[in-house]
C-alpha cells in the first residue's frame, strides 16, 4: 500500500463537518464548565460551609486524579442504569463539563488569590456588597488574570472532545474513523484529522496573548 495524499483531500469536506461538531461540543462544554467553575468558586467563598467545601474538594480531587476516559465511561454507562437516558451527545457534553469545571475552579481559585487585597477592602469600605462586589469588582479581575490558563484549559477541552468518539459522538475523530473503515486508508485520513486538530489547538493557544492584550488595553 502506498501513501496517497488524494485520500486526505477526498476526506476533507466530511472532516471539516466533523470539525464543526468538535468545535460545538468544545464551546458548549467550556461555556458550561466556566459557569459551573465560577459557581464552585463563589460557593466556596460566599457560603463557605465546611461540608460543602469538603464535597467540592473530593470532587476536584477525583476529577484531577482519574483519567477523563473513565469519567466519560462512568457518565455514559452509569446514568442509563439509574434511569436517566441521555444521548451520547448530551452525555459527552456533561462529561466534558464536569471534568473541565474542576480544572476551571482551580484556575479561578488561583486567579482570585492574585487579586490585590486592597480591592476587597476598598470595595467593602465603599459599602459595595453582594452582586456588585463579586460581579463588578472581584470576578472581572479574576478572569482577566486567568486568561492564559483558561485558554490553555480550552485547548485541553478541545483535545478531550476526541475521546467522545469512543461513546459514538460523531465528531471529527469519529468521522475520520467512519471514512477509513470504508476506504482502508487510515494513515492518509488520520493525517488530515491530525492537521485539523493541530490548526484548531494551535490557533486557540496563540490567541491567549491577543486576548490578554485586548483586555489589558480596556483596563488601562
Amino acid at each position, binding site marked *: 500500500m502506498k501513501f496517497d495524499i488524494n485520500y486526505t483531500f477526498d476526506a476533507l469536506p466530511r472532516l471539516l463537518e466533523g470539525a464543526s461538531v468538535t468545535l460545538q461540543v468544545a464551546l458548549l462544554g467550556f461555556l458550561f464548565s466556566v459557569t459551573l467553575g465560577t459557581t464552585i468558586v463563589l460557593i466556596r467563598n460566599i457560603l463557605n460551609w465546611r461540608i460543602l467545601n469538603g464535597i467540592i474538594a473530593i470532587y476536584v480531587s477525583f476529577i484531577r486524579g482519574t483519567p477523563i476516559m473513565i469519567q466519560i465511561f462512568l457518565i455514559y454507562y452509569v446514568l442509563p442504569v439509574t434511569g436517566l437516558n441521555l444521548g451520547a451527545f448530551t452525555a459527552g457534553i456533561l462529561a466534558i463539563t464536569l471534568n473541565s469545571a474542576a480544572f476551571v475552579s482551580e484556575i479561578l481559585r488561583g486567579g482570585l488569590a492574585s487579586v490585590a487585597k486592597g480591592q476587597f477592602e476598598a470595595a467593602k469600605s465603599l459599602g459595595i456588597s453582594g452582586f456588585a462586589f463579586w460581579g463588578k469588582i472581584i470576578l472581572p479581575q479574576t478572569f482577566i488574570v486567568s486568561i492564559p490558563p483558561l485558554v490553555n484549559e480550552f*485547548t485541553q477541552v478541545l483535545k478531550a472532545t476526541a475521546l467522545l468518539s469512543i461513546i459514538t459522538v460523531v465528531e471529527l*475523530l469519529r468521522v475520520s474513523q467512519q471514512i477509513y473503515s470504508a476506504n482502508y486508508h487510515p*494513515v492518509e485520513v488520520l493525517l488530515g484529522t491530525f492537521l485539523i486538530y493541530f490548526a484548531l489547538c494551535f490557533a486557540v493557544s496563540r490567541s491567549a496573548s491577543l486576548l490578554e492584550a485586548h483586555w489589558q488595553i480596556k483596563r488601562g
Partner: protein
Amino acid sequence: MSIDFSIFIEYLPFLLVGFWLTIKIVAGALLLGLPFGLVLALGRKSNFFIPRFAATSFIEIFRNTPFIIQVFLFYYVLPFYGIRFPAEYVGTVALAAFGSAYFAEVIRGGIDAVPKGQLESAKAIGMSDWQAMQNIILPQTLPIILPPLTNQTLSLLKESAILSTITVQELTMSGIRVQGETFRPFEVFIMVAILYWALNETIATFMRWLEKRANRERGSNLHATRLKKAKRLETLT
C-alpha cells in the same frame, strides 16, 4: 440501582494485572520520555536554526493534538511501513513521545528560571556552553522542575488510559472487559477510577513531602545566611 459488592472482590485480581501493566507502561514512557524531553529542551534553546526548528515543531505538534490521534497514527503508520510491534510497545513509545513534548517545556522553563548571571559567570571562568549547562545550570533547575515534572507524570498516568483503544491490556481495557462480562458499569468503572486515583494521590503526596523536605533544608540555609548577615550588620553599627 443496587451496588453488587461481590464484583469488587471477584474481579479485583484481574484488574490488578491490568494495573501492573499500566504502571510498567508509564514507567517505560518516563524512562524514554525524560531523556528525550531534555534533548528537545536543549534543542529548543540551541543557537542553531535546524535543531531549534526541529525541536520546536515536535513540541508544538505533540502539545497541540489529542493524544488519542497520536496513538492511532503510531498504531497505523508503523505497520504501513512494514514495522510490526506488539501494541504495548507502540503504546509506550507513543506515550513517551507525547510526554517528552511536555517534559521539554517544563525543563526549558526550569532553565529559563535560573538567573542569567549563573551562565555568564560560568562562561567568565572559562567553561564551555556544554560544561556550564551540565555543571551549573541543569543541577539548579532540578528543584524548580520537580513539582511540574510530577504533574506531567501524573498526567501521563491518566493519558495511558487511552492506550486501551489500541487493545493494550492495561487497567482501562481490563475494566472494559470486566464490564462486558458483568454488565455492571458502575461497580467496574468506580473500581478502576479508585485504582487510578489511589496511585495518583500516593505519588502526589510523596512528591509533596519530598518537596517540603527540600524546601526546609534550603530554607534553613537561607535562615543561617540571614543570621550571619544580621550579625555582621550588628558589628558594623
